[in-house]
Structures are given as structure tokens and as C-alpha cells.
């Protein structure tokens, strides 16, 4: 069974880089020689790096808690403190991890726990939960909590939206100067944004290679290999990593080596991964000759407007033009173009109980898109981290039935 999943050789380099990233954070947390900022995954990381902050992303920790299935033991501890089982299970896993003093970072990187921050910085572009999540730590540690409040469900993004968001980015500067002790440096910000932009282009190139038939990469690979694009964007290591990954995947294409042997069907995954079942899902699809070639999730860390001349304009647009921030009409157009670009045969929508923000099947979108494209779909009920909300049997039956349906129609 395990053979169905093709190992990407660059994984070793990625682990090395991630190890160094966490080691640096851990050292700073111990010596307090460098300042640490916590940032939401699509928050203003470039601005923070321009002040010399080491940037830590709690959502990455959330995903690790989910993949390791430790989340199961931790979520109830947060529930018991009043954080409902119905809210973001990254939040409840992470707060549970803090309350119980348990984290997979210990085994993986020898860390006692996540590095304690000097400042907490959020952007509500993705959800309101991140603000409440960081609010917990603000009260615990009495560190500044600052952020950007982005309007959501946006159709067109107007000049007014952008001007307001640019002003909000700039309003963070005095606090960041004070905490870091470093004056704002526009040139430094330009450099970081330029590096982040180069990372984005490389990451986009990685994902676009999946338009090739057979695809050299699956969505499940993507969820692992997006790590550097999330946590190291703005650093040269991220660029270095994706150059290596792109080369390996291009070689796969040259060798006609498929990520899924005998690729017969190509699926799109809409919504978050079920982290604790990632490997099972990867094997299930691979064993049925189905490659999940693309996803909204992995594509959400492509920030092309970072390439524009003004770094503030670039950040404001990048973090607002994202899928998760947009209207249903925009999302339908986006998914339609993904179906076309990646020649998708079927769509899996993951209705993640604790993340309505990444569950795009609650307002009739799958039905409308299916009428427009004739691409069949399934909706599985589950969750990113809380496996109490996931039924293995129902998901498996639905995946297999969609595959049967498509095979029968060929």
C-alpha cells in the first residue's frame, strides 16, 4: 500500500530547512537575543521580517497537531476552558497543547514548546478565530496584540478597500518599532517583499506543474511541501527550496514519472485537508489511479501582487485578493478556471465542521458550479483536526463512489 505514494527526494532538504527554522526560533526563545513575532498564516509576515523579527505561525503548529493526531487529546482541554468544540480546531488544538504542555515539536525538534512571542500580529482576512486565538496568548503573556481587520466576502476589491488596508498595515509600524527597537526601513521591506514574491512565483510554478498529465505531484504532497512558502516566505531559504523542488518535478515530467501510477482520473480538493487522515487519503486515491491534482488550499499561498512597485500596495492586495476573502461569485469563477486549467474530472468538497471559512459548500456553490461545468462532486463531512467529526466509512464510500461514477461514464 505504502508504495502507492511516490516519495519526493527534496523532502530531506525541506526537513533540514524546517529544522533550522525551528532551531533558530527555539534559540531566540531561550536567549531572548532576537525578537519573535507570531503571525497568522496569511498575515503581514514580510512587514515583520523587515524589522528583524523571527516569525512563527501558530497555524503551522495546528496542522502538526492534526497530522500527529495529538489534537485528539488536546482539543478537550480547550473545550473544558470554554473554547467550544464548534470553533476552529486549530485554535482548540493549539490552546489545548499549551494547557497540557504537549507538542510534537518536542520530539521533532527538541523544543519544549512553541517559542514565546514578543508581539502577536493577525489579519482577519481568513477568519475571526485568529484574533480570539491570539487574544488567549495576549492575556496569558501580556504581550501586544495588533492586527489588520479585513472586510470579507468581497466581490470587486476597490481603491477604498486597499487604501484602508494600506493604512492599517502602516498603523502597525509604531508598535513594531517599539517592540523590536528597530526603526522602520522601507528599503529593507522592499527586499523582503521581493524575496517573498520570488518564493510565490516558484511555489506557483510547483503547483502549475500539476497541469501536466500525468501530474508529477498530488495535493497531498502539496500540503507538506507548502511549509516553506508559509513559514519562510521572505527568506532566501524558501527560494532555495523551491528551486530544488521545481527541478525535481520537472525531471519527473521529463521522465514521464507520475505522482500516481497509471493516473486515470484527476480530482480537485476544495477545502482543508483532514490532517489526521492525510496519508490514508493519499493512499486511497493513489490506489484507485486518481490523482488529486489541485486545491484551493495549496493555491492560497500564492501572492502575486507582491510584485507591484509599492510594497504596501503589494501586501494589501495580496492578503485581500485571496480566495478565502472573496464572494461566492468570485469563488465560483475561480473554481471554474481551476477545473479548466487542471482538466479536473471530479471535485471533493471538504465541509470542515469547525472551519466555515474554508468550507465552500454551505451556500449552494457545488451545485451551481456543477451546473456550469458538468464536473461531478462529493461533499464529505469532516474536520481539519477534530477527528470526532469525521466518519472514515462515509468519506471512503463517497470517494470511491465518485471514482466509480466517473469510470462508468468513460
Amino acid at each position, binding site marked *: 500500500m505504502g508504495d502507492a505514494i511516490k516519495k519526493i527526494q527534496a523532502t530531506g532538504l525541506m526537513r533540514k530547512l524546517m529544522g533550522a527554522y525551528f532551531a533558530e526560533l527555539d534559540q531566540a526563545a531561550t536567549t531572548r537575543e532576537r525578537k519573535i513575532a507570531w503571525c497568522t498564516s496569511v498575515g503581514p509576515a514580510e512587514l515583520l521580517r523587515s524589522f528583524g523579527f523571527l516569525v512563527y505561525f501558530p497555524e503551522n503548529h495546528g496542522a502538526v497537531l492534526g497530522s500527529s493526531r495529538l489534537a485528539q487529546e488536546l482539543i478537550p482541554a480547550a473545550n473544558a476552558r470554554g473554547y467550544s468544540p464548534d470553533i476552529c480546531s486549530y485554535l482548540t488544538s493549539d490552546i489545548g497543547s499549551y494547557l497540557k504542555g504537549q507538542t510534537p515539536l518536542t520530539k521533532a525538534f527538541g523544543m519544549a514548546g512553541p517559542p514565546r512571542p514578543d508581539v502577536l500580529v493577525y489579519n482577519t482576512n481568513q477568519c475571526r478565530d485568529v484574533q480570539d486565538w491570539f487574544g488567549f496568548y495576549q492575556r496569558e503573556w501580556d504581550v501586544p496584540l495588533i492586527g489588520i481587520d479585513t472586510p470579507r466576502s468581497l466581490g470587486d476589491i476597490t481603491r477604498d478597500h486597499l487604501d484602508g488596508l494600506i493604512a492599517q498595515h502602516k498603523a502597525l509600524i509604531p508598535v513594531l518599532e517599539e517592540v523590536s527597537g528597530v526603526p522602520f526601513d522601507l528599503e529593507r521591506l522592499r527586499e523582503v517583499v521581493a524575496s517573498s514574491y520570488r518564493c510565490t512565483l516558484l511555489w506557483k510554478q510547483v503547483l502549475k506543474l500539476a497541469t501536466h498529465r500525468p501530474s508529477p505531484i498530488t495535493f497531498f504532497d502539496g500540503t507538506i511541501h507548502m511549509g516553506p512558502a508559509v513559514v519562510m516566505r521572505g527568506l532566501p531559504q524558501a527560494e532555495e527550496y523551491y528551486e530544488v523542488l521545481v527541478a525535481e518535478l520537472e525531471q519527473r515530467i521529463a521522465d514521464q514519472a507520475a505522482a500516481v501510477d497509471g493516473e486515470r482520473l484527476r480530482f480537485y480538493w476544495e477545502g482543508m485537508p483532514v490532517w489526521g487522515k492525510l496519508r490514508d487519503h493519499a493512499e486511497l486515491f493513489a490506489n484507485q489511479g486518481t490523482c488529486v491534482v489541485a486545491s484551493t488550499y495549496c493555491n492560497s499561498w500564492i501572492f502575486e501582487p507582491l510584485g507591484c512597485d509599492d510594497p504596501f500596495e503589494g501586501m494589501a492586495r495580496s492578503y485581500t485578493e485571496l480566495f478565502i476573502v472573496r464572494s461566492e461569485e468570485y469563488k465560483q469563477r475561480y473554481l471554474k478556471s481551476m477545473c479548466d486549467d487542471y482538466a479536473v474530472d471530479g471535485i471533493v468538497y471538504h465541509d470542515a465542521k469547525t472551519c466555515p471559512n474554508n468550507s465552500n459548500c454551505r451556500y449552494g456553490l457545488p451545485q451551481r458550479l456543477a451546473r456550469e461545468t458538468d464536473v461531478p462532486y462529493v461533499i464529505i463531512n469532516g474536520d481539519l483536526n477534530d477527528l470526532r467529526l469525521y466518519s472514515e466509512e462515509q468519506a471512503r464510500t463517497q470517494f470511491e463512489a465518485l471514482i*466509480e461514477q466517473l469510470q462508468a461514464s468513460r
Partner: protein
Amino acid sequence: MNKVFCGVDIGASATKLVLIDAAGQVLARVVRPSGVDYAGTARHCLETASEDAGADAAPACTVATGYGRDNVDFATEKRTEIHCHGAGCFHLAQRALSIIDIGGQDNKVIHLDDRGRLQEFKMNRKCAAGTGAFIEEIALRLGLGVAELDSLAAGTDDPVSLGSFCTVFAKTEILSHLRQGVPVEAIVRGAFVSVVDRIIEMDPLEGAVMATGGVVAHNPTIVEILAARLDRDVSVPESPQFTGALGAALTARGLFDDQPEGDT
């Protein structure tokens, strides 16, 4: 000896097995509780069915379906319940259909086109509301056998309303109805209405509708309530509990026919 084809549907509560001949005629049907040893139950069903059918050779091809489809060691292939219910119902109806299958643990809605091809399907959310498990729980709370429910529900036109999605809360509601002296018939009918409500929430259910599954087999009153709600006939096949196993057997026959050396 004529060839025999086997379909076995291992559901959460019952295992159903059907043997057919090359013409698609049913030779035997067997049902028994799935228990804990799926493989053993499936073999046992096959032995009984083979005896009933007077078949002395093993089936030429077997397809397994249902939750336990991976556990049947004598199966040639497996297919999902969605596929098999579709195949079984289309064989019987020969027309475009919306199928409602009420199983022990889940409900399904399956849409077929006029050539029997699967167009769309849905399963209930991860919850026992509206399934056979819900009805079993209600029977337990009322101290009744599941076999007694249908005639009770048929005996009244005046169901109580059970407002809760949740099986456990519905049981609490039942307690309060009992305290108020509501007749048990009204409570059972209320539970049936709640099953129908859960199904109607799943899909608009356009076109011809067929109902299948063990719950339908034992509780025709549920189908009556459903038909009244939809304001349309709801057909029920002759052995509604066996459509998945029948579809599996027909699929087995199809697979055998497709083999290049199938006739040898």
C-alpha cells in the same frame, strides 16, 4: 451447470446475499445480522443461499458491497453501495430514478439517468438521525420490538412532533410526551415523520422515486408518509432490503461477461 453470480452487501446491521443466474433471475436471497465477524457471516450466507438455490459450484464471480465490502474473502471485486443500489434499482425499474435508501446507519439519495448511469449521490451527515439506528433507539426507549413499530404508526394520523435532530434529544422529547400521556402510536408515527423529514432535507427528490433498504422493508408506513410528503408515488421494489446485493450480483455478472475468456 449454469453459471451463478453472487452479490453480497455487508451493511452496518445486516448482511444480504443474492445469487442470480446468467439471465439475471434471482435464485436465492439470504439475510442475517452482520455481527462482528463479517467474513464469517458472508460465507455463512453464501452456504445457505447455495443450498437454497441448489447450486453446487462456487459462484463464477462475486461482488461485495456495503461497509464490510473489504472483508469478503471470496469476492472477486468490490463496489460501493451507491453503485450497487443504483444497479439493482435500475434493473428493476428500467427508467430514470431517484433512489432513497434508508439503511441501518446511513441514508443515501442516488440519482440515475434513463440509462441507469449514476448522475449524483448524497449521503446523510455523520449522524444517525433519520436512519435505522434512530428507529432502533426509539423502539428501545419505548420498550418495543422494532417489528411492532409499523403497525402502531399505521394506527394513527396524529403524530407528535419530534423537533430535535439529535437521537438522544429525541429520546428525551419522547420521555416528556410519555409523561403527558401521549399515546404510543402517536410517538412512533412522530418518529417515522422525523425519519422522512431528515430525507427530505437531503435532496429536492425530483422525478420518479424508489425507496429501498431494511427500514423500508419492515416499515411500509414510512414510505406512505414519504409519498404523502412528496405528493407523489414512491415505488418499493419487491425485496427492498436486497437491492444492493442484487446490484452487486448483476455487477458480478457484468464483470464476468467482460472477461475475454469469460465463457470458457
